[in-house]
């Protein structure tokens, strides 16, 4: 196995061997399906307008906070427990350790999100009756694919930011209010929307059917895949900054 493969294998053991992984990912799955059932029951609400994709992502956008917590804690716990020293002694190449960690956290989130997202959509579809969207419509595939990418990249973004802060608490203290809470509420105020709409938690909203370009209240100045493209840029920037910090700093 390559040195990077060995480092990734070690990261995978780290992720699966702590209790918080099983707890957070299980809570994410259970709550996501619960929200799907709940929101699916009020599909006629004017907000969704019978759009089962919109209703599916309503719940997932709330439960993604649990995923972000998992991603942040996976990195932050290395610093809070001091195992980062043993990690760097075992894998002295900082770039390799960073790449392995980000890959494993991203992969763990990706394989968790996909089945949960599909199951949540299936639940909403089941409640929608004749309003159910076609599973093979491009709009459905595009939205589910984009949502999967979006939720996964948000977690990689958060994990990379945690390498900068070296703290679970600080990362959550910064990310949760700025990105997730003010972004969703204040992001619709006319005064700041031109800027906030480009925040990483906002750029996936179009593809997830939470808004449509040009909508007077919730609208965005970009399209679905442009939004994903912006999120890729955010993630790349966070990864670049995290990699630099890891290379430069003392452990």
């Amino acid at each position, binding site marked *: 196995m390559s040195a990077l493969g*060995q480092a990734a294998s070690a990261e995978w053991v780290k992720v699966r061997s702590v209790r918080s992984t099983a707890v957070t990912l299980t809570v994410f799955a259970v709550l996501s399906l619960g929200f799907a059932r709940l929101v699916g029951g009020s599909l006629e609400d004017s907000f969704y307008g019978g759009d089962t994709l919109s209703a599916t992502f309503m719940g997932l956008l709330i439960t993604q906070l649990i995923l972000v917590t998992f991603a942040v804690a996976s990195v932050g716990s290395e610093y809070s427990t001091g195992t980062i020293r043993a990690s760097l002694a075992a894998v*002295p190449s900082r770039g390799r350790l960073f790449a392995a960690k980000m890959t494993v956290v991203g992969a763990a989130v990706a394989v968790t999100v996909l089945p949960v997202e599909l199951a949540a959509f299936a639940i909403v579809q089941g409640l929608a009756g004749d309003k159910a969207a076609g599973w093979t419509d491009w709009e459905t595939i595009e939205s589910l694919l984009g949502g999967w990418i979006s939720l996964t990249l948000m977690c990689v973004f958060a994990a990379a930011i945690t390498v900068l802060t070296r703290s679970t608490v600080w990362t959550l203290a910064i990310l949760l209010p700025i990105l997730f809470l003010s972004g969703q509420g204040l992001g619709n105020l006319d005064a700041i929307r031109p800027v906030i709409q480009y925040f990483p938690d906002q750029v996936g909203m179009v593809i997830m059917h939470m808004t449509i370009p040009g909508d007077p209240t919730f609208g965005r100045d970009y399209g679905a895949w442009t939004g994903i493209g912006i999120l890729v840029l955010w993630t790349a920037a966070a990864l670049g900054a995290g990699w630099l910090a890891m290379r430069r700093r*003392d452990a």
Partner: protein
Amino acid sequence: MIEVSNLSKRYRGGTAVDDLSFTVEPGRVTGFLGPNGAGKSTTIRLILGLDRPTSGHATVNGRPYASLARPLHEVGALLEAGDLHPTRTAREHLRWLARSNGIGERRIGEVLEETGMAGAAGKRAKTFSLGMKQRLGVAAALLGDPGVLILDEPVNGLDPEGVVWIRNLMKRLAAEGRTVLVSSHLMAEMALTAQHLVVIGRGRLLVDEPMEKFLASHSGASLEEAFMTLTSESVDYRSGTSRTGNTR
């Protein structure tokens, strides 16, 4: 073999390691002594590439630690024994270390046996006493069967049986031809374990000589008294007396 050459580490607040040079030879236990705050742990972190030196360099078997692709096969280190995730078991802790360096599953069982941790292998680290954490740290250091061992204050928290165990283990590892560097702030403990002595104070080298020579030249006083005299100029503070003189 470990070589430290003109190593310095300065922080914004001051100097932790100051132009330090010494060599740790294989086949004997080298005691690395100094009062608290002397720079022992910083030196070890610099050797392991965890911290970046301000100037100078350190090598292990002739190479900088950071250039080793699978370092656990060459160097085993025990740093802070408490560096464990509280909900990860002893076996899983060793497993991720083993995986990172391509070490087989069988070796995990061997080091658990060797350190007396086999019975606690499936227990989570938060249930461990400090002594058990030290044993797990030693197990981790031995994992890659390395020729160089660096142990930072391994005796801390061990019960008398554990102290005798670690003492004999270090002697055995050195007798097998390995390089063993063990730090301590307890002179008496080192006198029983180490064949060679490196003493630092305020980051500077004070003594680098065989233990026998050091003992002979301080035969009149107790070991701790000799140690205190030696390092009196370089401790950060001492209860009841104000610091007189400053080496810098």
